[in-house]
């Protein structure tokens, strides 16, 4: 799977893009966030307040409850500020 990060989430994680196999026992976005939290102190910091984050699965906004699969591109980012 692919996980992409933007803005300060990208900065705190220290990378804009990670690719790895879907971890065992992870079936939802929420489960993935739990797993990512243990990946590095940067991940932990970036993901500490989930209410302050937004998510997408395969280019569509998604809730943390969304099911995910190994073929998915997951995006994790702060609330957007376009316009």
């Amino acid at each position, binding site marked *: 799977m692919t996980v992409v990060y*933007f*803005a300060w989430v990208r900065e705190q994680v220290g990378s804009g893009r990670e690719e790895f196999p879907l971890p065992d026992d992870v079936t939802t976005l929420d489960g993935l966030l739990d797993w990512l939290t243990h990946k590095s102190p940067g991940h932990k910091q970036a993901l500490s307040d989930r209410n302050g984050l937004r998510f997408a699965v395969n280019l569509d906004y998604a809730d943390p409850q969304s099911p995910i699969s190994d073929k998915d591109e997951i995006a994790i*980012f*702060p*609330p957007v*500020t*376009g*316009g």
Partner: protein
Amino acid sequence: MVTVRVQTAPFDQANEIDALLDSQKGGGGLVTFQGLVRMKNGPVSIRSLTLEIYPGMTERVVSRFAHEAKERFHLDACLVIHRYGRLLPGEPIVLVATHAPHRQAAFESACYIMDHLKTRAPFWKYEETDRGGRWIEQNSADIDAVRSWHA
């Protein structure tokens, strides 16, 4: 006609508007909104504004809003150009143009698109000032504005 572009290059509002009007001779009302990088944040001078996008998703989301606006407000035409990358104070960030038989529809649809760009389209703004840089936070008034379209 719906045109959406997400690009680093500057745009020329005049050329864009001429092209939009030439594409369909409808009369009525044309509303444009142009957003410009501000010069000051209170007393602090701004050096630059850098916009980050999510390539693929950004275009997809902006395009969806533009098409929604065209349907909802019965537009003749709708244009959205949104820049990303590093911009300087005074530079244009975004151009929205809506053309409708009635002015109210043209005004409302341009508002609708701007409210959605502010709160739903994947852009993130980093502002560099004389006192350092910061990621701009989403504005609660913008969130209220976008919700009012879906109440």
